[in-house]
């Protein structure tokens, strides 16, 4: 549906996005994950047609998008920013804003807005104004406001960053409900992998403005110390990760989940990284394609390993169980 080809985007000459190809297909539920500053918000602003890429081409249903997209095209996509803002007026007026600018009568827009409010549990807030709402409520209103205009592509930038767990769940359920009644594509930018895994069909990782070649788990922004040796130790949270690289200074480390050995006891091996901890979560690994199991453990930082269902069964993996994650220094990707 929306496609970026050979896109390089710069701010004041600084390259912030460098994508050979990125597409959001119709009806997709896509998550873009990555650190703060990885380029997620910029990507969403391009997809939302709010900015034109400095270089490269953007296509909508295989047709190139002009630098100043026509209004009819702009109205097919909506973005909810990471820290959304409500416009002047009540919540009800905000929910109806997109409909009113499309020429809908006040009565019809109010009716639609009330329906969306009910879907998102916002009915008690309809008369309130922005200064009477919490950050989490503003975020919910902003998502509902975006959905009210029935976009073909809904872009959400960290939609649950101000929400508690229950509110976050309610928001995703309301989204799923809306998607079930009317197919549209959703692209969520998040640094919370749990959200991404729980709700997305497809996950892409961004690091330093580029699509990461590895699966998006276990990305860490670190400072590699100077030194002549090939093996360096990077401090990540409470642990040190051994990594084979010539690079020094600020880098992003990626530990491919499929390169992590999972065991119940430390194994004698050549792995330079042997980390003990406890299992925090076990879930189907949706983007591995082969029906893998994603085992998340707190080993000082949260790491995800992907194992086969057979291995998970044999190890009798369960939440809160002690576990050892091992991986070679050379398995750690640096970029």
């Amino acid at each position, binding site marked *: 549906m929306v496609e970026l080809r050979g896109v390089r985007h710069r701010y004041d000459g600084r390259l912030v996005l460098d994508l050979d190809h990125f597409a959001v297909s119709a009806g997709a539920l896509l998550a873009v994950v990555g650190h703060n500053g990885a380029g997620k918000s910029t990507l969403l602003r391009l997809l939302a047609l709010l900015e034109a890429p400095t270089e490269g081409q953007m296509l909508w249903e295989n047709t190139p998008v002009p630098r100043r997209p026509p209004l009819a095209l702009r109205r097919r996509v909506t973005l909810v920013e990471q820290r959304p803002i409500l*416009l002047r007026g009540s919540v009800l007026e905000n929910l109806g804003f997109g409909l009113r600018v499309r020429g809908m009568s006040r009565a019809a827009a109010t009716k639609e807005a009330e329906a969306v409010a009910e879907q998102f549990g916002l009915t008690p807030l309809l008369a309130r104004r922005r200064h009477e709402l919490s950050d989490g409520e503003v975020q919910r209103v902003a998502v509902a406001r975006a959905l009210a*205009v029935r976009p073909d592509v809904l872009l959400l930038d960290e939609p649950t960053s101000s929400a508690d767990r229950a509110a976050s769940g309610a928001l995703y359920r309301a989204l799923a409900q809306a998607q079930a009644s009317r197919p549209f594509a959703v692209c969520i930018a998040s640094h919370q992998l749990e959200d991404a895994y729980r709700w997305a069909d497809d996950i892409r990782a961004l690091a330093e403005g580029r699509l990461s070649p590895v699966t998006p788990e276990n990305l860490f922004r670190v400072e590699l110390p100077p030194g002549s040796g090939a093996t360096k130790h990077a401090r990540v949270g409470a642990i040190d990760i051994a990594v084979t690289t010539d690079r020094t200074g600020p880098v992003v480390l990626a530990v491919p989940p499929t390169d992590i050995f999972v065991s119940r006891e430390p194994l004698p091996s050549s792995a330079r990284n042997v980390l003990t901890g406890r299992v925090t979560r076990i879930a189907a690994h949706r983007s591995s394609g082969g029906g893998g199991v994603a085992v998340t453990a707190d080993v000082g930082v949260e790491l995800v390993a992907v194992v086969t269902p057979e291995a998970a069964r044999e190890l009798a993996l369960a939440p809160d169980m002690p576990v050892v994650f091992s991986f070679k220094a050379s398995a750690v990707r640096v970029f």
Partner: protein
Amino acid sequence: MDFLAEGFRRALALLISGDPEVLGIAFLTLKIAVVATTIACGIGLPLGYFLATRRFWGRRAALTAVNTALAFPTVVVGLLLYGLLSRRGPLGGLGWLYTWQAIVVGDVLLALPIAAALSAAAVQSVDPRVRRTAVTLGADRWLTAWTVAREARFALAAVITAAFGQVVAEIGAAMMLGGNIRGSTRTLTTAVALYTSQGDFGLALALGLLLIVIALAVNVTLQVLQGKGGG
């Protein structure tokens, strides 16, 4: 001190009695101020929005030019327009010199930079997310501008007040372009200057008080309108 007290007494008597000359001067001043402010803000506010929101080559130079024009001496504007509108000038054919229209032209030129520069600053102070939100929710160019303007309504009301204040209190261009002709182009400011020089302090004071009342009334009206706007 006596002449001050006498001046105030005469001023009040003129105002209470509804002296036709005083009311005529006040009406003309109000007419010129309203027309000039409307034209200046009608051009200046959209120009300010454009300067604040569009990125184009020369934008910074345009902003600098507008800000510099804020400090333009009124007599210089009057002088330039006098040259243009005088019979031998390129716009002499209009026959506007020493008419209220000429004063309006001068006032517009003086108020336009105020309207443009201050509204650009007002729009720039609006959270950029407001504009992006309106755009991403499908607002066209005009509705987007309207949405941003609603957020900046207090600052924009102040812009209109400032433009009105400039126009209503202006004397240099009004004197040079209007000529201070009794019953035709005599405004409150030019009349105050004239009657003071003639020694009619009471009349000058009465007109000065009227000028303050008009400025106060406009400010109060705008504040009431802002209050009705809500949050």
